């Protein structure tokens, strides 16, 4: 009755490679990606030109970095609504310190990183200690950071925007590393794209091939059961909040270096776009399921739909309408493919 390991089981129907691939969370999203790309590329030659690709990949990269971090957090069963504003906070710290207090860019970035990690730690500690839903806790930090961004910037500089980073020491180096461009086939692409690919690769490795990855799935799937087998649930969640904060710092620094100025209300509303990208990419809102690659694909789908409409020149008043329809169709395609993959017989 016990079959030798490795012998084919008569109770398992032959599953084609294609179907096995389609079952992965991210490969459903890839179908949405292809559909959206095909739609726009067919109608707009600029959209599919290298220059066009560089154009829509650029915002997809910064969104993707955040979406990947948020996806990890969501797989771990938590939300972070403060991540968007935190990109602003880190940017403001960088520019203010480098332009008003004479720090060089690297030191200013380091201070920003420390503050970001402290905020991530605080989020994590409050969530794990009080057991309040992270939706509420990070909503609190979201609002508080918004106030701090505005209040502190006003108090220190008298305006709601700080600028002039270009003149700071170390600016050129930092810019080349984080906000420069690389030429590929004659078209300049933003280096942010490389950072994004790196973040996605690392996150995927952590999720699939490391112990913490196993813990992330577990605390999101059933925290109590995970604790019962000895998973350090609180530490895992705190680490996830700090990862998100790290990503926010990275994105905040990239944007501050690129535009050399930061407005105090930057990043507000972005937190939901991160979540949207993660969900399009197959993350469950209830936790325990999802993938980093999926979130990246979700970011690209969002970026393509968002820019593609502009490339097609559709009426700006109806922009949001098309965007909504596009997202719905992309997720639907994704879902249909997955269901097909799961249900196909033999």
């Amino acid at each position: 009755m016990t079959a030798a390991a490795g012998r084919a089981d008569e109770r398992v129907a032959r599953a084609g490679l294609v179907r096995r691939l389609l079952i992965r969370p991210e490969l459903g999203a890839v179908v949405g990606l292809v559909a959206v790309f095909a739609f726009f590329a067919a109608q707009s030659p600029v959209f599919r030109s290298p220059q066009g690709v560089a154009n829509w990949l650029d915002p997809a990269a910064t969104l993707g970095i955040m979406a990947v971090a948020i996806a990890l957090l969501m797989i771990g069963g938590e939300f972070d609504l403060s991540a968007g504003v935190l990109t602003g906070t880190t940017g403001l710290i960088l520019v203010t310190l480098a332009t008003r207090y004479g720090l060089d860019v690297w030191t200013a970035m380091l201070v920003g990183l420390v503050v970001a990690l402290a905020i991530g730690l605080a989020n994590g500690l409050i969530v794990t200690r009080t057991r309040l839903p992270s939706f509420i806790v990070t909503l609190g930090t979201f609002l508080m950071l918004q106030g701090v961004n505005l209040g502190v910037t006003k108090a220190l500089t008298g305006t709601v925007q700080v600028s002039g980073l270009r003149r700071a020491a170390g600016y050129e180096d930092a810019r080349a590393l984080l906000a420069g461009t690389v030429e590929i086939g004659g078209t300049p692409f933003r280096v942010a794209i490389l950072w994004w690919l790196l973040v996605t690769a690392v996150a995927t490795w952590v999720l699939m091939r490391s112990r913490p990855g196993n813990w992330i799935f577990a605390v999101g799937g059933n925290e109590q059961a995970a604790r019962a087998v000895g998973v350090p649930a609180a530490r895992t969640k705190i680490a996830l909040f700090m990862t998100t904060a790290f990503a926010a710092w990275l994105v905040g620094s990239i944007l501050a270096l690129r535009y050399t100025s930061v407005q105090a209300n930057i990043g507000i509303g972005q937190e939901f776009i991160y979540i949207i990208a993660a969900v399009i990419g197959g993350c469950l809102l209830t936790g325990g399921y999802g993938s980093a690659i999926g979130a990246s694909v979700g970011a690209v789908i969002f970026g393509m739909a968002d820019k593609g409409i502009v490339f097609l020149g559709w009426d700006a008043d109806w922009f949001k309408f098309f965007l909504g329809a596009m997202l719905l169709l992309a997720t639907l395609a994704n879902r249909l493919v997955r269901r097909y993959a799961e249900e196909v017989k033999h």
Partner: protein
Amino acid sequence: MIIETRGIGKTFGSVLALRDVSMGVAAGEVTCVLGDNGAGKSTLIKILSGVHRHDAGTFLVDGREVSFGSPREALDRGIATVYQDLAMIPLMSVWRNFFLGSEPRRGPAFDVARARRIAREELLAMGIDIRDVDQPVGTLSGGERQSVAIARAVHFGARVLILDEPTSALGVKQAGVVLRYIVRARDRGLGVVFITHNPHHAYPVGDRFLLLNRGTSLGEYGKADITREELTALMAGGAELAELEHELRRE
């Protein structure tokens, strides 16, 4: 005695789930915990394994008083548990569940290949032939799920193995395998706590029998002090079972 409790108790809000229970688990012995539904058996073992903190009495491990703040602390002292209701993460694959919290490493990485292989082997050894260790646990049958949990606890069980109704969802053959595991663990010098409703499972393997009723202890018996019939009678709250068998057979 590896584990000892003296007059231990636990309250949930206004519910007194456990009152004044004393018991012991010795190396190389099987302690069976028996009792009606809602008697407090699971509550007791959740205290032993660190899921709940007791709020009355003393709890000793190796003679020193402890109060576990988390299951990790219990695991670190070699107490491995199969829970009745906190078993598995449904969306995770079998092998990920199997090694959850004790992942084998190769360098910094989770040694996935080894984890897969061991999970499959340990399950095969239990007579469970899982088609595919990548299947999410949520799609397994009730008994298959239970088997994964038991195989895990047996694999990692260090000094004390606690099993909360491990055999209830199992087929006759699989239950036999589990009973054999219990005996083997005992022979290797582990202390085993075994909860069951089936006197036919409890009597053959048990060395001591702790009887719970409505949250309190009815006493702890050595195997020498009690016969199978007495045990069955005690568990069934009198002669009910015999009468029932009779009644059902009549028709």
